[in-house]
């Protein structure tokens, strides 16, 4: 193994415990890193990652009360805040490692279990960086979204370094999926599974079947994954997708509830459960999911109007059955306030927020306020700032206002 030159690499160290942070920073300095940025929590890390480029990210899994290291990784990879050429090393404890290994879709480049020695960390980092070097052309192509060239580059790497063939095959399979060549992806994943039991290959197989519309076969793959390891939570997400496509909304809801019991902090999963619950007229479950999503959205890459508007919607649907409880009312006001602060430019967002507000006041039998809000909405419509109420809404309001 070649000794790595760390001096020109930019490192980001994410660790909430002061003692460990000081120790790891010292280790990185000793390895030769000259550029080391520090984040004490995921939110700070996201800000840093938005504004700067890093070659190495060393993140603890446990980051205090906020997001954990795995969520941080999923978010920054999903939103492409870190390129594939960067190395993400997760520091785990014995208890958290299962969560990291169970995340099939977004795995760190490597993990190291606490406690580790300086020599142990150096060795792990050197190995990972060596692998990144070898896969450089592949990762550059992936970052550019050039999947054909990623496949070609991966084949070259496999030839030269047989020990990287697993990684390369995975990249090739996933690139086929990106290129919508599902039959090629499927035959590659199936071929791998014949000789080796790799969770990612089974996952890829299920995904290929799903995208080919072979829902039953897709379900088989995901169910197998769930049987193999209960920490493969994303298999539940895909099973829920299948059940949703088949119109089995209750089943999809049950699957997601189970997934959330295992891994509650995934915002997209909470949103999905909320949406399905709304379709099932289960506004209580929907409200709970969207409330959690609102909480998780703060400082996240998924901090979009949709999250907040959905939460309002779910509360408005609860109010269909009677006035909101004081606690629910507080939640409604707090989410509404956040919309006013950050998402009140878009005409559609305004219309949605107004309509939810009217519903809630009507449930309180506060017709006067409901009317005032409706008038405010209409005047914004005149100025072109808000989308007009639908005919259905207008006639429903007219009836409720009794005018």
């Amino acid at each position, binding site marked *: 193994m070649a000794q790595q030159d760390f001096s020109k690499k930019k490192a980001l160290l994410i660790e909430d415990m002061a003692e460990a942070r000081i120790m790891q920073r010292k280790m990185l300095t000793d390895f030769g890193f000259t550029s080391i940025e520090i984040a004490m929590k995921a939110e700070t890390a996201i800000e840093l990652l938005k504004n700067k480029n890093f070659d190495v990210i060393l993140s603890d899994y446990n980051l205090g009360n906020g997001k954990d290291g795995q969520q941080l990784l999923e978010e920054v990879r999903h939103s492409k805040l870190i390129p594939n050429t960067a190395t993400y090393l997760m520091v785990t404890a014995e208890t958290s490692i299962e969560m990291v290994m169970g995340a099939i879709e977004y795995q760190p480049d490597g993990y190291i279990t606490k406690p580790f020695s300086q*020599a142990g960390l150096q060795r792990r980092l050197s190995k990972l960086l060596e692998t990144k070097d070898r896969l450089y052309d592949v990762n550059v192509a992936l970052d550019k979204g050039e999947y054909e060239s990623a496949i070609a580059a991966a084949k070259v790497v496999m030839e030269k370094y047989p020990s990287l063939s*697993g990684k390369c095959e995975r990249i090739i399979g996933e690139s086929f999926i990106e290129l919508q060549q599902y039959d090629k992806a499927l035959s590659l994943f199936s071929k791998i599974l014949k000789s080796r039991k790799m969770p990612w290959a089974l996952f890829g197989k299920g995904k290929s079947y799903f995208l080919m519309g072979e829902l039953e076969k897709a379900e088989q793959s995901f169910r197998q994954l769930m049987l193999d390891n209960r920490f493969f939570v994303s298999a539940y997400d895909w099973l829920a997708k299948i059940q949703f496509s088949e119109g089995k909304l209750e089943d999809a809801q049950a699957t997601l509830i189970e997934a959330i019991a295992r891994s509650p902090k995934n915002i997209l999963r909470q949103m999905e459960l909320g949406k399905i619950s709304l379709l099932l007229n289960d506004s209580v479950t929907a409200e709970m999911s969207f409330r959690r999503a609102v909480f998780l959205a703060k400082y996240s890459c998924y901090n979009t109007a949709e999250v907040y508007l959905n939460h309002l919607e779910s509360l408005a649907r609860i109010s269909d059955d009677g006035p909101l409880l004081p606690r629910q009312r507080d939640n409604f006001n707090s989410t509404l306030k956040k919309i006013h602060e950050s998402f009140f430019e878009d005409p559609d967002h305004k219309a949605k927020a107004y309509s939810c507000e009217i519903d809630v006041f009507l449930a309180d039998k506060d017709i006067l306020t409901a009317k005032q809000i409706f008038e405010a909405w209409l005047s914004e419509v005149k100025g072109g700032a808000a989308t007009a109420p639908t005919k259905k809404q207008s006639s429903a309001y007219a009836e409720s206002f009794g005018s």
Partner: protein
Amino acid sequence: MKKIDISTILASAIHESKNQVGTLLYQLQSLKESMVSKDANQKKIVSIEESLKKLNDEWVEYLYLYKLASDGYDLHADTFLLDEFLDDQVFALQPSANARNLELGYACNESLTGVFDERLMTAVVSTAVYNAFRFAKSKIIINAKQENNFLVISVEDDGPGFKQTDDEPDDFLEGNTGLGLYFAELSASAHLAGNARGYIKKDSSASLGGASLIVYLPQPVREDC
């Protein structure tokens, strides 16, 4: 009062203790670095460090043991290059071997791959090597090979070898040997492939003359061969 499961309590107590061992190791490392290299206490510090590392590894073993015995362990089998896996094990255990003036190495075909749970097998190999530390005269070697449809990993030493009267109940209660073996056995048998199940064997080392603990891990049968 609701009856509480004592083994669950013990498992979480072990966890707490393990975390404290981790903190101690960190503190020791900074202490070590603040000392001048010729300080007479260096050797003592290294020996404390080694003991703490061993303690940490033992706690990890007990935690897995608890999970395996209570069916709470989800096997996470993946394919590994044995050359790399064994190199990692030797690297992690080398300082402990050095502190005892013992030679530690590994041997396997460099293209040999195997399917197993890396964390479990890391714990099993380290348990076996720590055990061999107690008996080896000068040398310990970890071997890996493929035999029929099994991956065979053996930890061999040049000590006196296993006692002939094995499997006696006293053996189990006597000390950490028995518990370590029990752990290795549970870990091996957690590995399944088709109808085959993993197992362990106590043997003598043909090359070194001492004990050989052999772990057999069933491998998926290749359909294309």
